[in-house]
């Protein structure tokens, strides 16, 4: 497969290096700030020292046992959601394809709620597979309903809304009927990284790491698919197989993220748009940048969630949604103008 011949025009190399350095620096700063800030403040110098040489002081434990796993979970989930959105947008050639809007996250969360309520004995290892199944079914429903006559952004958004409200009614019904057993899930259902442990990190790290790696490997194929099915077929690509593979990967990344942080909307919408604006449409560049930006975005949002109402926690998903939804409105305005 000759990918160079279809590579879109790229901005100058030096600018890209600069962009990536900037994103990496942003992520690093977010990481350090996330380790330093919270219910108690730890000076930055001390954080760096404790990070390298742990001791048994309370501050060291706070950094290593609480904030580090939480920050890594946020970063990994953010990267997963950002890349998931990029893959879904690329494969559907639809700027509104976001795991939240498509109903993937609602499906994953509902699957987990069902597991928590009806199979309380099920081990936590099954969270990712369950969320994957739920997310895949939701995506299939939204996708199937919207794609029969052509996937316009409007149809996709509307069918996503319908799938999400169906899942919402089902979630509501489960919550009303099993209030106590579902009560704890309210915090988890709204998307949060509070109190995530190393155990939970290792539960999803393989899935998300695998997904991100595969995404990077497959990014040239996304480039081809993004050109449209006709062009892709003429280039000798087995489009159906590739689309299914990449969509599955997008769902897996979203499911992995949901199973540890709950549904966090709009990361998968904003991040890919930002990444494309910075690097152009080449997925080999926009994909790693989406991962960096997604991770930084969720970590920064989580810092805000910790600080807004100390020592109580605000679910980060709600903050991100409230901040990201206006972007969705702007995008809708923009797309609607084109008589989509």
């Amino acid at each position, binding site marked *: 497969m000759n990918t160079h011949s279809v590579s879109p025009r790229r901005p100058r190399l030096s600018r890209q290096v600069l962009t990536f350095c900037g994103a990496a620096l942003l992520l690093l700063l977010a990481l350090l700030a996330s380790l330093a800030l919270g219910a108690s403040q730890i000076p930055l110098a001390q954080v760096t020292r404790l990070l390298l040489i742990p001791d048994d002081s309370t501050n060291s434990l706070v950094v290593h046992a609480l904030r580090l796993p939480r920050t890594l979970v946020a970063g990994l989930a953010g990267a997963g959601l950002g890349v998931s959105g990029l893959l879904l947008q690329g494969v559907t050639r639809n700027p509104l394809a976001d795991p939240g809007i498509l109903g993937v996250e609602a499906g994953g969360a509902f699957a987990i709620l069902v597991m928590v309520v009806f199979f309380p004995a099920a081990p936590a290892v099954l969270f990712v597979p369950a969320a994957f199944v739920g997310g895949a079914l939701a995506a299939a429903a939204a996708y199937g309903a919207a794609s029969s006559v052509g996937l316009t952004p*409007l149809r996709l958004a509307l069918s996503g809304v319908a799938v999400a409200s169906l899942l919402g009614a089902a979630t509501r019904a489960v919550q009303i009927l099993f209030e106590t057993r579902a009560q704890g899930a309210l915090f988890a259902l709204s998307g949060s990284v509070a109190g995530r442990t190393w155990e939970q990190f290792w539960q999803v790290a393989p899935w998300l790491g695998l997904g991100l790696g595969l995404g990077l490997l497959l990014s040239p194929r996304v480039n081809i698919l993004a050109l449209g099915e006709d062009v892709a077929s003429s280039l000798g690509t087995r489009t159906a197989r590739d689309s299914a593979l990449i969509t599955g990967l997008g769902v897996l990344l979203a499911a992995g993220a949901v199973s540890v942080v709950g549904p966090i909307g709009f990361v998968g919408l904003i991040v890919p748009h930002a990444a494309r604006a910075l690097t152009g449409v080449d997925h080999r560049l926009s994909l790693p940048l989406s991962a960096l930006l997604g991770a930084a975005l969720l970590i920064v949002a989580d810092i805000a969630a910790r600080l807004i109402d100390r020592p109580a926690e605000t679910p980060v998903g709600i903050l991100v949604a409230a901040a990201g939804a206006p972007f969705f409105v702007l995008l809708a*305005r923009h797309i609607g103008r084109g008589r989509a």
Partner: protein
Amino acid sequence: MTTPLGARYTNARALGVAGVLAALTVVLAVLALGLGAVATPAAQVWAALWGGGDDLTRQLVLDLRLPRVGVSLLCGAMFAASGAMMQGVIRNPLASPDIIGVGAGAGLAATVFLLAWPAAPPGGLPWAALAGAWGGFGLVLLLSREWRGAGGLHPVRLALVGVAVAAALGAVQQLVLVRAPDGLGSALTFLTGTVYGADAGRLLSVLPWALVLLPAALLLSRTLDVLNLGEDLATGLGTRVGPARLLSLGVGVALAGAAVTGAGILGFVGLLAPHLARLLVGAKHGRMLPVSMLLGALLVLAADTLGRALLPPLEVPAGIFTTLVGAPYFLYLLKRTA
């Protein structure tokens, strides 16, 4: 389809369908009066309706069940009429009050109202929801307007912006809800849509809206037919499209808003009923509107009766049933319509 549309959907057929639906509604209403957490023999119910019967049955039937049946019927009809009008104006079969910001606005306003003003007089919640419904719709209208160039409402953009605004309002509602310390259950069940607790007072507060707006919707059915032809044709027929759209949308939103004060957000009634009506009597609004009102009334009454009789004394909100039926149908529609 072998029969031509014109021949298949006649006035006679519409009258027949309406007659059957009306009869069904009456039967279900009588059934609903007899069903509930407390068993009431049919003979007693019948006697109570004519002023006889024992005291308890009379109170159960006349004070508790009758207003509830009335509110169900009115709100169902109003949601259905609202959906039918919006689908006509936006020229999008997938439009419904839930989608263009009405539901989300009502939800946000109700939540904020409950939290910010815990000592509010009872019965204030529906009015907050009404204000929110208008606010949500206003926001969608404002954001979907093209400020430069030829103004006017573009149907596709309206729907898409509606979805986005609904998401934004929903997010803000979540942000407010998570601050709630305990027991916002009453607000949540109201938002799911329920006729629980409907009494004569609520019936009387919904009734005037219904008496004005439902006939107004019927009067607008010719305008809707014209709008449905598309902008160019409608202009060619001498209709001023902008004002006609605004007027019809205004009535549609008022219908949904008033229905929200009666029963909360009954999801997908406004979508389901007009489509079923179109299948039964065709797309002409003069026939379709009354039939979809009857269908909406029937649907909500059935959902509420089911919710009351399923697991007494537990009340299952009617909105859960309508959404569980309506959302899959919406997806099916999305699959079928071009």
